[in-house]
């Protein structure tokens, strides 16, 4: 991008400004809670209960971080963000972290100056059509009307996919999943495209899920994960390793139910010992308590438990683990060693 | 013009004119944009004088008296009121306005305040008089204009004549040395004119310096010590009432008097 006249003056005025990089971790500890940016509502990932509590897969990541820092899953406050406001809210310091089905992309990482801390859900964009249309592949969708959520990467993927396959389509932008669902069911669009998890979740809520089919094409990679601002590594480490702890816990078979017993005394597996604070001073390295990981698992459960609780096959959403199985089970969920 | 003035009781003996100068206007000119409203006005008013200004509409008579308390700004010449020159200095303007009372054709009472509040507003806020004192003075003044019983009513509840008397009382509460009257009776019904004129006569008898723009020629004859005729922005003629009415010199004055007294 070329320098414009505007930029000259602005930059000149801004040269004097120093970069004020206060540590978010210190700030968070000082104020006593984590301010977590979330979505305004995605089935299974973020929704409100009748009691007025936020709950869901993304929400539990926030709660896990709160537990890591304060030992209390309730020491978190939520800021619902839209596709438009989420990055600004993070960049301006309004929220400390964002856990809102956000796809990790190059430009977000580099250009928007954000740091992605791992992947809590591997997704990909797919298509859902009514079975009655008799469509078996996305390439047969020439001329179809496609419902699509705006403000996400999906509309870019969609444009690229149809352009690459040289077929035409008619985008119907909608603001939220609920709108999309209503439109799709009413037949205002032939196809609904969003992340495959979203498709499955939406389909599960239909009266007759079998009348709809999710096409085999997955047209994009959508690694979703929590993120923080650039240049705040201590805080980033806390969030990253909170997520990793959930993953390792599942790999090692630590659950909310048995973590108390396992943390009571050192066991045979040194990694579990390190993780649960019965060996070494690993928590202190990040400025956290010794048994922070144990508290996280006790309060939230391990990755698999969180998954099953909110979006797994036994829930209304009914997503299979698929790519999101542990690497030991042939999936992509894999944490670096806790060492 | 109107016969209501025939019954005015005027005691000329009570009216004293002193040598002290109340208003001194020298070579004053004023323009509205391109329009030359006031041309080379020269006027000296002694303390205790009662001057009636008359003339056809648009002759600049209202503008003249409005210049005296700076409701209009003159562009050339000099106006000195009670020894204070009217210039761009805002403090002087404030001082002069406190000394000069003005009455309007349309009364301009403040409709959201009671009669008493109308009368105490300026003493309290401009003269910084304590409220009790201001109210006591106001009640006295209202008695002087003969409407003490209306003190707690709102202006809209009063008749036109009563309103104008309240307006006079409002001025008097500031204890002014000079009073300017801008056609005080022309918005009133005939039967109300007299009650206002009575109050004005009372003022004159008290020795007030008065500049009155009016078409009440009876009032001019009995009360004024000088009548001034203006036309097209200039003072055409001024004289004592008897001379002015019976022996006008200027043709325009004659024409005007013949029209206004024909009825």
């Amino acid at each position, binding site marked *: 991008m070329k320098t414009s006249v505007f*930029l000259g003056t602005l930059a000149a005025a801004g040269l004097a400004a120093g970069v004020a990089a206060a540590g978010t971790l210190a700030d968070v500890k000082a104020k006593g809670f984590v301010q977590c940016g979330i979505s305004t509502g995605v089935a299974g990932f973020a929704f409100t209960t009748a009691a007025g509590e936020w709950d869901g897969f993304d929400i539990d990541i926030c709660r896990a971080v709160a537990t890591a820092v304060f030992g209390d899953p309730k020491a978190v406050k939520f800021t619902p963000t839209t596709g438009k406001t989420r*990055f600004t809210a993070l960049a301006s310091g309004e929220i400390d972290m964002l856990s809102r089905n956000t796809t990790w992309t190059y430009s977000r990482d580099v250009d928007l100056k954000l740091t992605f801390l791992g992947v809590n859900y591997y997704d990909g964009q797919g298509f859902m059509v009514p079975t009655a249309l008799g469509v078996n592949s996305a390439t047969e969708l020439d001329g179809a009307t496609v419902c699509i959520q705006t403000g996400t990467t999906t*509309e870019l993927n969609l444009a690229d996919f149809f352009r690459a396959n040289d077929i035409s389509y008619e985008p119907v932008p909608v*603001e939220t999943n609920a709108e999309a669902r209503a439109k799709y069911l*009413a037949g*205002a669009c032939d196809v609904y495209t969003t992340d495959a998890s979203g498709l499955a979740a939406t389909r599960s809520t239909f009266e007759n899920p079998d009348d709809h089919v999710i096409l085999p094409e997955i047209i994009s990679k959508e690694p979703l994960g929590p993120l923080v601002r650039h240049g705040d590594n201590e805080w980033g480490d806390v969030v990253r390793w909170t997520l990793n702890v959930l993953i390792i816990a599942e790999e090692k078979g630590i659950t909310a139910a048995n973590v108390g017993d396992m943390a009571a005394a050192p066991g045979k597996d040194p990694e579990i010992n390190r993780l649960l604070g019965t060996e070494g001073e690993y928590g202190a390295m990040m400025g956290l308590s010794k048994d922070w990981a144990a508290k996280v698992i006790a309060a939230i459960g391990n990755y698999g438990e969180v998954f099953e609780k909110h979006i797994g096959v036994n829930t209304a959403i009914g997503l299979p683990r698929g790519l999101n199985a542990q690497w030991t089970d042939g999936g992509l969920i894999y944490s670096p060693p806790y060492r | 013009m109107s016969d209501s003035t025939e019954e005015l009781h005027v005691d000329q003996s009570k009216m004293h004119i002193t040598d002290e100068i109340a208003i001194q206007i020298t070579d004053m000119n004023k323009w509205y944009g391109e329009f030359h409203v006031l041309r080379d006005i020269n006027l000296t008013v002694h303390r205790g004088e009662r001057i009636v200004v008359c003339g056809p509409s648009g002759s600049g008579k209202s503008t003249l008296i409005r210049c005296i308390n700076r409701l209009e700004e003159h562009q050339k010449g000099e106006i000195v009121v009670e020894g204070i020159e009217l210039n761009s*200095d*805002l403090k002087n303007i404030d001082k002069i306005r406190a000394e000069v009372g003005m009455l309007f054709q349309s009364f301009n009472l403040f409709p959201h305040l009671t009669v008493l509040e109308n009368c105490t507003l300026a003493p309290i806020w401009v003269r910084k008089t304590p409220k009790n004192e201001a109210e006591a003075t106001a009640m006295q003044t209202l008695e002087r204009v003969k409407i003490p019983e209306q003190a707690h009513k709102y202006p809209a509840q009063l008749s036109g004549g009563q309103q104008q008397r309240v307006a006079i009382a409002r001025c008097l509460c500031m204890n002014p040395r000079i009073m300017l009257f801008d056609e005080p009776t022309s918005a009133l019904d005939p039967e109300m004119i007299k009650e206002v004129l009575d109050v004005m006569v009372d003022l004159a008898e008290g020795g007030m310096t008065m500049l009155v723009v009016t078409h009440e020629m009876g009032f001019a004859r009995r009360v004024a010590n000088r009548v001034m005729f203006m036309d097209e922005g200039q003072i055409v003629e001024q004289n004592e009432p008897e001379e002015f009415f019976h022996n006008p010199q200027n043709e325009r004055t004659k024409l005007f008097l013949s029209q206004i007294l024909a009825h």
Partner: protein
Amino acid sequence: MSVTTEPRQASFRIDMLWTDSRYRSTFLQIIALIAVMLAAFWLVNNVAQNLANLGKDFGFGFMTTPSSYDINQRLIDYTSRSSHSTAAVVGLLNTLLVAVLGCILATFLGVTAGVLRLSKNWIVSRLMTVYIEGVRNVPVLIQILLLSAILDEVLPHPKTAEALLGGFVVPTNRGFYFPIPTFQDGSLYVVLAFIASVIGAIWFGRWATRRQQQTGEHLPVAWIKLGLVAGVTLLTYLVMGLPIGLEYPELKGFNFKGGIYARTSLVALTLALSIYTGAFIAENVRAGIQAVSKGQTEAAFALGLRPSWTMNLIILPQALRVIIPPLISQYLNLTKNSSLALAIGYMDATGTLGGITLNQTGHAFETLMLLMAFYLSISLSISFVMNLYNEQVKLVERTSVAGGGFSVLALFAGVNGKWETLKKGDATMQPNYGVAGWLNLVVLLYGATLVMMLYYLFLDQSEGRDSYYLWGTGKQAITLFLTVFSATAFVTAIFKHYRFIDMAAAELVVFILAVLIGLPFGEMTFGLLDTSVVVFGGLAARLATIGYTVFGARPNVTYFYRVREGSGS
């Protein structure tokens, strides 16, 4: 003389700044100016610091990069490879489209409901009251969402859709499909015949009015006009062998193909906005008619005019003057409310420029600035039209020309007047037509040049032409300087400040210099408009401005002052 009046032109003291009326207003204004500038500096400085801290840069370069998203409703060519600025233009046009359609429909609804609410028919007037009070008091956002949902649910799927009105419209829950006219050889003659017959009908109407005034005879003018236009056009159409046909939409694959169609989002938005705004207009219409009708109706009846004539000749012309100012401010509200399109995915300016582009590029500052500038220019244009109207109503009343509707042309009627008349545009001596007319022209020209400049600078994407953002800094600066200058002169003219001779003169010098060195207007072309038109138009505008100031006429441009008694937005 007891008082000596030594003119005390005392030397300047510092307290005279606030005690002397000569200096006080200037002093206060300078303080205000300093305060505003400090505040502006503080804000800009904060922005610069914040941007620097975040490592973001400020610039419009991103507008030329491919947008990578598709837009379904578009009036110009656009693909996902087009630039963000093209996407913005698509959005702007969509905003204008919905605004224009909405205003027309809202006027229709509002006038109907307003008149019917005054109807003697009990049930009808009650129904209209229910409509007006029901709709006015519910947020328009909810109405848009609700209507959009209703259209989705109620209208049939394309597979089951049936053509209505003899195939003229096919409503589906994807959109409304209309046939498109196709033009073959000879259709030109039909169009020409149509235009000619319309002109003939207008001429006939005038002739009939004259005749009626002279002889008192009534002709069924409307029927004859209709017959004239329809007859001539139809005849030519038949003679030329039916050259104009209709291409009907057909169901192919997933959707209907062919014809023109309006997406449901467009229909829902237009409908919701016009139903909402129509309720407000209905109240304005009712108030306007009631304001006029009482005594006037009786007077007209007393003169022996029939009720229908009374409405047309007496009530409506007067009521219109009361109705039109609030009506135009309702148009403005409708246009601003159209930004709620993003709630139902209609891709207006807020959806493209302030929506996806902002989202995908992260340049919130730049996109929001452009977006606000766009809405602001629409608002100012609409108030401009309203003020033109008010000016003319005032003129008509002042010169006591009886009746007479509004015509834009009449505003320029004085342009050909005598120079003396123009020079002495004094309201008390002469009707102000001349100066008003000329000055309208000047302001219009200013406005046009400005719009063209801005378009050229930031939006023009024609082939073989460097974008503004890619120029050298010098060229950028000169162009920007010129534009800002033009804009300031324009704004000064708008805000009644008539002594802008220095500004206009300076601008003229800069402008001539710019033309001489060939920067940057040497390469300006706008379709049919040649460079010279723009250059000389700008010159003429500036010269005229100077002329007015020199010759003492007072370009009293009050048109931009809004006379709105707006009720909500």
